[in-house]
């Protein structure tokens, strides 16, 4: 089903990653030398999670003539923004620097990526917004980078991968959440990972499709980690956005978290209300991929009922990943009201900084807007 109105906010868009040479101007002299002398500039920091030629990594019509997944600015406008009448799109830059073990190198490259995104994308296309990428080796350093980049209000979120080295609820990461909450940034957790652990509790699957399917269990583990550690008690304004996660696994997580919590409550006594309620308040999920069988509107409707909230869904195309054809970005069977919420209102609620942007561009264009 197509969107029938303009103004949607796309909460997951992937610009084509700059190769290392494109990042050189954004590095200091030491790192420029390192990248060049060690021939690191021959590489593009492509993540294992998204092999470029895989059907998942790009729709056939969303590729460069060379075959590489699309996403230069021109393609983004033509293919991801214009056809959907998109008002804002959040660029989630899936750069592999975070998978390096050298924390200084990872940090330098992430700084360069953030600066490149601001200059090459945000400056040139007013509809674009972005996530701040930081490595997680050193939470203090991550906070410094977040504070630096967040001065640019077009950055609306901090981006992590769902399969990292340490579960995200852990207290060592709390300085990051404190900064994000203070700076009104959402925390985005995106499918994929650094493979510092096996993707499953039983080790390494043979196939990429298995790794991709396993993302949902990884999301479950992360949500439960944030919940159990009390991140949502400590940072009551924080919003977590699960990106490219699917959504049909949510009800089971909510039910089981409630059930087990009732029996183990003294272990985590800071959780003072049912986990499902906490999840509904603090967690958001982007639309693509819609992991419901195609055409099964009943299943989607009942799943949304099981989830028990129409505030959790956020519109996304996940451009250029291949999850739908043509402009049929919406699954069948959603009510107009739900579409409106997921296309616009939920995102404005989740990303406070978007509201500033909305205000600015409304003043400029004289549009009416819906702000919750």
């Amino acid at each position: 089903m197509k969107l029938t109105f303009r103004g949607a906010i796309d909460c997951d868009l992937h610009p084509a990653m700059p190769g290392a040479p494109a990042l050189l101007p954004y590095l200091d002299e030491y790192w420029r030398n390192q990248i060049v002398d060690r021939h690191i500039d021959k590489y593009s920091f492509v993540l294992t999670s998204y092999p470029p030629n895989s059907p998942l990594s790009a729709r056939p019509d969303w590729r460069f003539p060379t075959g590489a997944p699309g996403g230069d600015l021109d393609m983004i406008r033509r293919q991801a923004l214009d056809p959907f009448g998109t008002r804002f799109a959040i660029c989630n830059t899936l750069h592999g620097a975070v998978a390096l073990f050298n924390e200084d190198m990872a940090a330098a490259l992430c700084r360069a990526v953030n600066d490149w995104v601001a200059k090459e994308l945000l400056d040139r296309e007013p509809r674009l917004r972005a996530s701040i990428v930081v490595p997680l080796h050193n939470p203090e350093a991550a906070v410094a980078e977040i504070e630096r980049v967040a001065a640019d209000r077009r950055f609306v979120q901090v981006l992590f991968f769902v399969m990292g080295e340490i579960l995200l609820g852990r207290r060592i990461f709390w300085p990051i959440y404190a900064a994000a909450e203070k700076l009104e940034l959402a925390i985005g957790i995106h499918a994929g990972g650094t493979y510092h652990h096996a993707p499953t509790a039983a080790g390494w699957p043979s196939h990429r499709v298995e790794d991709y399917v396993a993302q949902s269990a990884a999301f479950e583990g992360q949500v439960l980690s944030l919940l159990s550690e009390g991140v949502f008690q400590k940072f009551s304004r924080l919003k977590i956005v699960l990106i490219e996660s699917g959504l049909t696994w949510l009800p089971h997580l909510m039910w089981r978290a409630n059930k087990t919590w009732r029996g183990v409550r003294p272990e985590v006594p800071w959780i003072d209300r049912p986990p499902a309620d906490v999840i509904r308040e603090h967690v958001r999920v982007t639309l693509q991929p819609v992991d419901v069988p195609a055409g099964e509107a009943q299943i989607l409707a009942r799943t949304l009922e099981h989830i028990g909230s129409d505030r959790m869904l956020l519109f996304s195309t996940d451009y250029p990943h291949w999850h739908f054809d043509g402009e049929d970005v919406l699954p069948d069977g959603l009510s107009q009201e739900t579409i409106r919420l997921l296309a616009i209102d939920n995102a404005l609620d989740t990303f406070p900084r978007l509201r500033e942007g909305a205000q600015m561009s409304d003043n400029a264009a004289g549009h009416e807007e819906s702000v919750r």
Partner: protein
Amino acid sequence: MSRQVVARAGDIAPGTCKIVSVRGREIGIFNLDGEYFALANRCPHAGGPLCRGRIGPLVLSDGPGRYHLTREQKFLRCPWHGWEYDIRSGQSWCDPKSVRARQFQVTVETGASLVKGPYVAETFPVLVEEDYLVVEVTASAAS
């Protein structure tokens, strides 16, 4: 409504529970600092023998990593799934709105006004000066 003698007041040490049978139903009698409360020995969650659980304080918290015990030792943890109940009110703690253990009125009555029931006749001499524990059960007590 029927009233049945279930124990002598001194039978139940403070901070403990005695499970008795009333009209074929098991009921736990709790002594909390000299006050008596009675709960059905069936957890409304999934039918476990609630009154065999541990009696103790409630664990509260004002933030992650901080643990505080209530001074009052008046909470019961079901021995099956660990659900917690306020013995005084039957209220489950974790989800106060929705779950409540079945409660019964317990009064302490002096010996002279007793109706002699099978329990007393069989196992304890009637002692006029002693205080008896009497449980009131509604006649239509279907669980």
